[in-house]
C-alpha cells in the first residue's frame, strides 16, 4: 500500500463495538470479522481524510512506538481491502 493512498470504509457494513474491538459483518461474502483494538483504530482511520503515511504517524504517536510494525500494518490494510471492509478513495 503506497503512502499517499487514502482508504474508506465500505458503505453498508454492520459495525458493532465490543469491549475489545469491533465486530463487523460484511454482507456480500456473508462474513463476520473481529477487529482487535489496533485493527479497529486502523479501520476508523480509513475515513478518506488520512493517507496511509498519516495513519502510520498517528499509530506511532498514539502508541508511543519506537519501532513501527509496518509489515503487520500493511497486512491489516490488505486484509481489510481483500475482505471488502475498506476501499481506496480519491482525496476528499
Amino acid at each position, binding site marked *: 500500500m503506497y503512502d499517499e493512498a487514502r482508504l474508506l470504509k465500505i458503505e453498508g*457494513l*454492520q459495525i*458493532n463495538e465490543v*469491549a*475489545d474491538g469491533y*465486530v463487523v459483518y460484511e454482507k456480500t461474502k456473508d462474513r463476520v470479522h473481529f477487529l482487535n483494538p489496533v485493527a479497529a483504530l486502523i479501520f476508523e482511520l480509513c475515513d478518506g481524510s488520512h493517507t496511509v503515511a498519516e495513519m502510520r504517524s498517528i499509530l506511532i504517536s498514539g502508541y508511543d512506538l519506537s519501532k513501527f510494525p509496518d509489515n503487520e500494518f500493511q497486512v491489516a490494510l490488505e486484509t481489510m481491502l481483500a475482505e471488502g471492509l475498506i476501499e481506496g478513495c480519491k482525496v476528499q
Partner: protein
Amino acid sequence: MQSTVIRTLSHEFAIACPDPIASAAMAFVRAAPDMPERVLAAARISLARLGAFYSMRTANGALFEGSLSHIVHRLHRFLFETILHEAAGAPILHAATVVVEGARIILVAQKAVGKSTLTARLLAEGFVIEGDEHVVVFGRSVIARPRTMRIKQGTIGLIPALREIILASPTIRDWDGRLIYSVQPALPGRRWRIEQGNVKAIVTLEQNHGGHSIMTRLDQNEALRLAISMSFLPETGKAMAAARLRALIQGASCYRLALGDLDNAVWHLKQAAYN
C-alpha cells in the same frame, strides 16, 4: 382429552390432543421446565383428527395437515421459529447448558460429536442440565432453549445409570426406524429448571471417539470463530449478534474438549467449573 405443554422463552403452548395416539406423539415434544424468571404468555395449539390424518393450527394461524410424524416435524420447526422470534436478534448457539457447583458451562458442538451422550452422562453424574440443543446468547448472560434431551437407542448402553429413565421416556422413530427418546433432563425427584445467567466456561467439543478425552485452553479469537460457525445469526443485525457472542466469550474461560472416554470428559468439566 389430554393436554401437552410446551414452553419457549416467552410462551406456554397447550396442545389438546384428540386421542391417545396423538397424546403419545405430542409427549415427545413436551417441554415444561420451571422457568421462574420468565413471564410466559399462554397460547393454544389446536390438534384435531382429519380422517386418517391430523390437522394442527398454531397460535399465529398457520395450518398443518398430515401424519402425526409430519405434524411433530412441523411443530418442531414452529417452536424453533418461535424461539428465533423471541430471541429478538440474539444469536442461538448449538450447545448444551449444564450447571455444576453453581457454575454454568455450555458445550458447543456440531452434530454427531457426542454432545447429547456427554450431556446424558453429566446428568447421571449429578450435573444440572438446563438444555441440550440451543442456547440463546444475550451477551455474558444466556438461557437454554426448553427442549428435552434426545437420546438415540444406541446411546443407552453408554449411560447405564439412566437406562430405566430413558426407556420410560416418549419416543419417535427416525428415518432408519431407530428409536429416539425424549428424556426430561432431571433425575427422579428433581425438577427441570432453566434460568438465565452468566457462563463460567465455554467448551467446544470435537470428536475423538475411541480415544481419551483431552481438554485444552482455547484462544478467544478461535472460540469466536467456532461459536459463529455453530450459531444461528439473525438475517438482520449479524454484527450485533456476533458482538453478543464476543461478549459471552470475553466473560468466560474457553476450552476445546477432544471428546473420547466419558470418565475423563466429566473430570475435565468439573475442573473447568472449579477453576
